[in-house]
């Protein structure tokens, strides 16, 4: 276990280096000189040179890359071009809002998908199973944007069940605003999850131990709940654990549509304002979360399934 963990940990080093290099190249080199955009058309040469010096753009490429690595390690990405705020402060301020939407939505989505997947694997091959699978494929095929727009229009504007958009910093009041985006989150994600979890469960249903359980006379619901569910939870957990770090960064589209001031909204605003440092910071954060998320998943998985360690 320790040997595997060390090997897996060492493997992340070249990946970390790779993503830092790629992000640096994209934003700092190929992306061009931000001074023109910041100062406008009528900047004097002296102004441009001064700003270039302030931003460290007059240093060598290598020195700039080291500067960038320093930013990544210290989580200090400077200030936003648009709002002049410190980016690290913006991120800390946005995180609670993102989490208030993401945690309940993610929890409901996962539990509901597991329940439905278990139900359809009980009725596998029958009409209920087939219609739910078809429903999932149809659901996946509709754009997330359509769910958001129609959901907001019909449920909030037309029927008035929910506020159209907004957010309240109060710990309990905020859930009034978060309810509808959370509901849409669940609807958008459910189709994919049910389909994937169903295959995980059906993979288990065909195993020998399930046949044995049936052969010794257990009824089907005991087989499903006691044996299949327990074993199918391993792939299910690995599948969802990777998503957990991203709960911090929230949902771009849902947050910006419903006016929830989380990291998703910050990113969308940055995209609209061409706010380079913020986009770069968000890219770095999302990437690091992904790398450490998959590291955690692999380590957890190797703890559960000893075969992984040999590979």
């Amino acid at each position, binding site marked *: 276990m320790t040997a595997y963990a060390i090997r897996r940990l060492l493997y992340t080093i070249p990946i970390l280096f790779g*993503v830092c290099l790629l*992000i640096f190249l994209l934003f700092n080199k190929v992306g061009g000189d931000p001074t023109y955009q910041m100062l406008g058309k009528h900047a004097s040469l002296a102004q441009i040179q001064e700003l270039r010096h302030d931003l460290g753009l007059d240093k060598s490429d290598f020195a700039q890359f080291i500067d960038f690595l320093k930013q990544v390690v210290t989580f200090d990405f400077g200030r936003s071009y648009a709002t002049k705020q410190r980016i690290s402060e913006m991120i800390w301020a946005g995180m609670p809002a993102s989490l208030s939407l993401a945690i309940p939505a993610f929890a409901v989505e996962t539990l509901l998908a597991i329940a439905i997947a278990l139900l359809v694997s009980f009725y596998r091959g029958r009409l209920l199973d087939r219609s739910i699978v078809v429903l999932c494929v149809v659901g996946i095929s509709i754009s997330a*944007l359509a769910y958001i*727009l129609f959901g907001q229009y019909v449920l909030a*504007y037309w029927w008035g069940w929910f506020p159209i958009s907004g957010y309240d910093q109060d710990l309990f009041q905020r859930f009034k605003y978060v309810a509808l985006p959370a509901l849409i989150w669940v609807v958008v994600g459910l189709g994919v999850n049910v389909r994937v979890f169903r*295959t995980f469960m059906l993979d288990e249903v065909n195993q020998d131990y399930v046949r044995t359980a049936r052969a010794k006379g257990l009824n089907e619901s005991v087989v499903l709940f006691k044996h299949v569910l327990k074993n199918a939870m391993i792939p299910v957990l690995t599948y969802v654990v990777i998503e957990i770090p991203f709960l911090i960064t929230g949902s771009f589209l849902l947050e910006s549509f419903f006016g929830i001031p989380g990291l998703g909204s910050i990113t969308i605003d940055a995209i609209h304002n061409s706010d380079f440092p913020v986009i770069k910071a968000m*890219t770095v954060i*999302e990437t690091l979360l992904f790398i450490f998320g998959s590291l955690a998943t692999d380590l957890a998985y190797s703890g559960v399934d000893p075969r992984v360690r040999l590979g």
Partner: protein
Amino acid sequence: MSAQVGGGKSLWADAWIRMRREKLAMVALGIIIFYSLVAIFAKLGLIATPWDVEVAGAYAAPSFGSLKTIMGSDIFGRSVFYKVIHGTRIAMSVGLVTSIITIPIGVVLGALAGYFGGLIDEVVVWFYTTISSIPSIMLLVAFTYVLGKGIFSVYIALGVTSWVTLARLVRGEFMKHKSREYVVAAESIGAGHAIRIFRHILPNVIHIVIINLSLQFQMAIKTEVILSYLGLGVQGQPSWGVMIDDAKLELARGVWWQLTAATIAMSFIVLAFNIFGDALRDAFDPKLKMAAMPRREDGKK
């Protein structure tokens, strides 16, 4: 694909026969062909041209008076129906060009990594793990900034970011095939590496590319819509994403037709690719020959 022995059917003929039996898959194929024809005719200017002229007043509701106004009109009185048709052209071209960029990169890198192993494999795997570690939407945003907004950037950004899945799959297949008897036999009669990779192994794994293509296409269409919606995609042309973006402000005024038209047009093609992709996978999956096994999802290790 290759020479037949003793009347046996090739993998392809076999798969096609099984596909033919699936009515739903054939309907899906019909929808894909129909969308492709619409896109080609719109590109050639045979239908829905010109799309950017006034056909009615601003926000005219759908009416069955003429084909132009069957889906109503937008803020400038332009025909929503014509815009949907040109949106189809954009969407299909994004799917096609992305695939043209993705397939060579994915197949060649996957083949080299899987076949040679060792250092080449390490480097390729490092490269695609790096790319796939950066969330694709952020990478797409970065690319469209670097290249400038517009459809050309969408092509390049999608092409460069979406070969990873294909490379992974092809690499896995090459690793399985490289030590099989037929490849060893080819080596013993003097076939070099290039011949073994492209003439012997590739035809046996190319169906992976076809199955992946179907999923790739619909991912590209969905992503184009999101990018255009974010204002990073198609500029000055009627894309479904731009139409949905416009609809954001229209809904409150009771103008539902532009959003509905774009959403339905998009859903049908994505659904068709989903169903067709699933059917392709089932048709090529030899496991199904043996028993009615449950379907395995893609995207799993």
